[in-house]
């Protein structure tokens, strides 16, 4: 055969486990036998072997089921078990997984227990709304238990260790035997009459189910229920659950635990007080700091630190508006000026002044021209005249006289030639400044005269 044909152990085991799973009889089995090799594991699970003369089977009771146990499983105990059988693959074993377990022999007590439990439950005695709160800082603690035995010691040492502030009142109480039930009831009532305690611890140390039985009695349950002082029940070990536990205001698994539940821990309180104190410091300091910061922030805020910034926008706006206004005014002014100038020049154009001035100028020009022309004319006439005069003067025969020439007349006839003269003739010589009458002496013709 090839290697592939061989099953792995795991596969085989799984196959076997499936057979167990599939079998309806193995899913719920009722089996009785004797306990042996009982191991109470710290995880809360219980491991044991269930056996009788012919056979044995490994059994496991998991914590969830084990906590519901009303007794402590012990070596050699005859028990009735409800559970299922299955394979534990890791070890390749089959096991009985226990759901419920009841000890044989005291089955009647269990019946009674269950009946009372049922009854009180139906009456509502276990309801959470009846549970009275345990005071946080009890000043007086009543303890109802036997003055002998471990329970009272455990309770007192625990109370002392945790919370020496509280005063402890012990009501010596019978916790087993025939007188236990009435004594427990009586002491619960006494403590309520005394009314000095803030909380009661009612209980006892571990023992057989018969030992603890008083705490399963109806009278005790009703006394606990009727107590106006909150009650912490502490009966036996963790695994023992009594009716008293159901009806008590708080259930403690052990007497030591009851003492722990009854009071706060002094060391924790110390710590708590210190914590509160430092919290006070911190909170108030933080608040002060926060307020200071807030103040600083406000002081540094710009409205307070730079008030001018507050109205700066307005200043800016004002400046803007002013500028705008000026601009607008200028524009307007310019427009108006332009318009005015336009109109003005229009008017100006049509003004008679201009015409007048023009005419005046023209007149002036004309006048000047006239004056100039006249002057020119006069000057010219004058010059002409002078020139004429000069010409005339130049032409004036007499004028020569001034230069020394003389004009000679004969018979009032100006002589122009020597031939016209004859000796003896009388001549009149005209000088420029007078006349001379002269007689001719001799005539000399021209060539001879020279």
């Amino acid at each position, binding site marked *: 055969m090839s290697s592939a044909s061989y099953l792995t152990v795991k596969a085989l085991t799984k196959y076997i486990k499936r057979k167990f799973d599939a079998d309806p009889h193995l899913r719920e089995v009722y089996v009785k036998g004797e306990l042996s090799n009982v191991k109470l594991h710290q995880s809360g699970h219980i491991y044991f072997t269930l056996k009788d003369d012919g056979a044995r089977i490994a059994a496991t009771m998991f914590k969830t089921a084990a906590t519901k146990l009303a007794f402590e499983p012990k070596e050699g105990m005859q028990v009735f078990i409800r559970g299922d059988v299955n394979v534990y693959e890791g070890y390749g074993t089959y096991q009985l997984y226990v759901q419920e377990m009841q000890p044989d022999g005291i089955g009647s007590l269990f019946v009674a227990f269950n009946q009372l439990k049922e009854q009180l439950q139906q009456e509502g005695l276990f309801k959470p709304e009846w549970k009275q709160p345990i*005071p*946080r*800082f*009890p*000043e007086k603690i*009543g303890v109802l238990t036997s*003055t*002998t035995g471990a329970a*009272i*010691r455990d*309770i*007192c*040492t625990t*109370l*002392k260790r945790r*919370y*020496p*502030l*509280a*005063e*402890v*009142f*012990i*009501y*010596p109480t019978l916790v087993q035997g025939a007188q236990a039930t009435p004594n427990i009831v009586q002491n619960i009532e*006494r*403590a309520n009459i*005394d009314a000095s305690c803030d909380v009661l611890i009612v209980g006892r140390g571990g023992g057989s189910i018969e030992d603890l039985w008083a705490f399963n009695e109806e009278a005790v349950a009703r006394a606990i229920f009727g107590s106006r002082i909150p009650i912490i029940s502490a009966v036996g070990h963790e695994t023992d659950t009594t009716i008293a536990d159901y009806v008590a205001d708080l259930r403690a698994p052990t007497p030591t635990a009851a003492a722990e539940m009854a009071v706060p821990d*002094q060391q924790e*309180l*110390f710590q*708590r*007080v*210190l914590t*509160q*104190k430092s*919290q*006070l410091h911190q*909170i*108030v300091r933080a*608040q*002060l700091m926060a*307020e200071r910061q807030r103040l600083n922030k406000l002081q540094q805020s710009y409205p307070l630190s730079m008030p001018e910034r507050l109205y700066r926008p307005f200043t800016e706006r004002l400046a803007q508006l002013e500028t705008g206004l000026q601009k607008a005014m200028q524009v307007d002014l310019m427009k108006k000026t332009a318009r005015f100038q336009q109109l003005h020049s229009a008017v100006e154009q049509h003004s008679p002044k201009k015409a007048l001035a023009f005419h005046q100028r023209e007149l002036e020009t004309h006048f000047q021209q006239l004056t100039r022309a006249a002057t020119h004319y006069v000057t010219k006439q004058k010059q002409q005249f002078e020139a004429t005069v000069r010409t005339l003067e130049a032409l004036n025969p007499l004028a020569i006289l001034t230069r020394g020439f003389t004009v000679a007349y004969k018979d009032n006839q100006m002589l122009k030639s020597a031939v016209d003269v004859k000796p003896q003739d009388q001549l009149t010589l005209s000088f420029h400044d007078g006349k001379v009458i002269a007689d001719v002496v001799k005539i000399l013709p021209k060539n001879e005269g020279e």
Partner: protein
Amino acid sequence: MAEKQQTFADAMTALEEIVRQLEQGDVPLENAIDLYKQGMELSQFCHSKLQHAEEQLISIVQETGETTAFDPLKGEN
């Protein structure tokens, strides 16, 4: 303010209430400072209560109603 006959429980509860109030943070500063003072007194009070409670009083309540001292380590005398 702390009364003379104040119990530890009252003081502790008051202290916790003060811290709770302050933790909420809506207490005006003046009140906060008052609360702080009260809180400090209370914490002082609680602290000294805890410190001085060294010996626990344990007594037996007899059937007659009388109380007698009890030492749990020795058992009933």
